[in-house]
């Protein structure tokens, strides 16, 4: 992969700090990544790794006591992390769309889906209600809602989970944003519906050239949907690269352990590989490499020196990455 000249989204050294009674807690520490136009970047990690927080910061919905303490976020070259609230509000929805995990709480229960779509469209685009309704219908058809002409006047509770998530996707698409933050978009859905939604996201990405930041804990969803993947651990990116490489030839011991702990549908093993222990709490991130207490390869050096992430296509923040020989 080439470091293309103009990434759509560029995040550099992002640091997010929560000010607590016992002093500040660093939740995100030096996170950097780019998303190219039309690319799906997967963000994977365990709960508390900071993957959702990264998405929240990008759409400017970080709530106090959380604050951006350093670094910058640029969308099409323009800094967006320090925009005043009003400007950010207009940008959100217009240029960055969002899809959240629970489609029922993302929709207003007392408005028909048509009203919600029309409101969103007229907020962001210079069109009248009639025209907006036409566009709303097109959107519902595009995300695959059958009988859209009648469904447009239904309320969210009249839709099933999968259909609701399609409505949420239609809402995110209203103003044709260039970037969509999808935070666990399939987690609340059954497997057979999950596949429908990931297929839909991929199609939209292809047809509209929309970039997607796909936040999920499910490596399977990432493997099937994303172009590149960033693996997060304790508020840092530990590995980033093309999804194929990261899944098949992980270089960070954490990624490798994570991959090995997923049970397979193709064969039954007597014992699953497990990573002992748990991710450290924010207040107790060990010095050096954050993964060192759980790492089988850790040496004294790892406990004192924090590994950096090289700006390579496939990079791992590890002093002793796996498969160095294979790459040479």
């Amino acid at each position, binding site marked *: 992969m080439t470091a293309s000249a103009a990434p759509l989204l560029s995040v550099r050294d992002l640091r997010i700090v929560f000010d607590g009674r016992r002093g500040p807690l660093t939740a995100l520490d030096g996170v950097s990544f780019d998303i190219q136009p039309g690319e799906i970047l997967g963000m994977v990690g365990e709960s508390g790794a900071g993957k959702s927080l990264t998405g929240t910061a990008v759409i400017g919905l970080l709530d106090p006591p959380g604050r951006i303490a350093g670094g910058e976020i640029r969308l099409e070259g323009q800094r967006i992390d320090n925009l005043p609230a009003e400007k950010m509000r207009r940008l959100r929805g217009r240029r960055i769309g969002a899809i959240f995990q629970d489609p029922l709480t993302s929709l207003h229960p007392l408005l028909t889906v048509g009203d919600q779509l029309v409101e969103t469209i007229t907020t962001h685009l210079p069109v009248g209600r009639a025209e907006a309704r036409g566009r709303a219908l097109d959107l519902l058809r595009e995300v695959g809602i059958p009988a859209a002409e009648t469904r447009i006047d239904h309320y969210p509770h009249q839709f099933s*989970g999968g259909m609701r998530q399609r409505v949420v996707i239609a809402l995110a698409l209203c103003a044709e944003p260039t970037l969509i933050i999808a935070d666990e978009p399939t987690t609340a859905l*059954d497997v057979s519906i999950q596949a429908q939604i990931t297929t839909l996201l991929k199609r939209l990405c292809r047809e509209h050239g929309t970039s997607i930041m796909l936040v999920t804990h499910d*490596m*399977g969803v990432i*493997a099937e949907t994303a172009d590149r993947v960033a693996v997060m651990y304790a508020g840092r990116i530990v590995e980033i690269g093309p999804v194929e490489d990261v899944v098949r030839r992980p270089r960070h011991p954490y990624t490798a352990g994570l991959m090995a702990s997923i049970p397979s549908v193709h064969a039954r093993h007597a014992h699953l590989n*497990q990573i*002992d222990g*748990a991710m450290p709490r924010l207040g107790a991130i060990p010095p050096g490499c954050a993964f060192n207490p759980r790492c089988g390869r850790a040496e004294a050096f790892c406990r004192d020196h924090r590994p950096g992430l090289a700006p390579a296509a496939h990079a791992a923040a590890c002093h002793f990455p796996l498969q160095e020989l294979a790459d040479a």
Partner: protein
Amino acid sequence: MHDILTPPARELAMPKTATIAAEAAADVILDVAAASCRFDVSAPTLSRLFSHEPRRILRAVDNVSFSVRRGSTFSIVGESGCGKSTLARMVVGLQRPSAGSLDFRDGRRADGSFGPPRVQMIFQDPYASLNPRWRVGDIIAEPIRELKLRPDAASTRQRVGDLLETVGLSRTDASRYPHAFSGGQRQRISIARALATEADFLVCDEPTSALDVSVQAQILNLMVRLQKELGLTYLFISHNLSVVRHMSDDLAIMYLGRFVETGPAEAIFNAPRHPYTRLLLDTIPDVERPDRERRPMSGEVPSPISPPPGCSFNPRCTLAADRCRVERPELRPLDDVAVSCHLA
């Protein structure tokens, strides 16, 4: 590459009751015969009379039969609303079957006594299933005190400590509260509480679906080890096919309250017969074969209140023929497994 990462094995203290394990191979511990569970979801009587509506009956579990072998794992797989949790509740006695029967057979128990198995349940959400105001030691000791399994406080405390070590926690954790533990550790506490009753039949309703994958692996490994050491029988409820493959000896795929395919897990995974089973296996996101040609399943699970006539899967089935829309297929044996499909 994985062997490099294998963590240093932490050998845990084995409880004294161990190793009466899976010697009693083929005998049946639970026999479920034509069990059904129906819920009346009609509108209130008066308004129903005024609007001339018929009664509406939801068949959560419809005529389900299976038996579980002692010391094995029987899994039930299905999407939300298929009735798998209702079935689990029936097995533990939290829900009375509307028809049919569930029979626990007598046998040698984990503690050496003879009789029907002691049944316990492990719940999905370890954040909701532990009382936040109780110390972990009291949570685990409650069943011991309640069932008078130990004569005095000292031996109860001893037993609680043993149980904590059995599930991979430390004795000193007894004095802490649930909030001090992570999701995986809480699930270990739930398991210790279930084992405190000398249980030998555990109904596990999605025990790992609230956990992260690396922690899920820890819990699954723990469950497999405990099964070997204590000769436990598991009824394992899950929607995650990879987890089910890892855990099960036998399995049943459930759709709209009925079994569509049941048999030895290996036989089903190697050669799925029912179109629904095949589609389920086809649609799970797969790290190992991300680029394979997939046919995403169209449509959604119909309402169990008014299931379609004929085979309940027919509206989503690509193979459905006229017969499937009229005549409901019964489970019929086919090699090692049983399938309810006209075309299988």
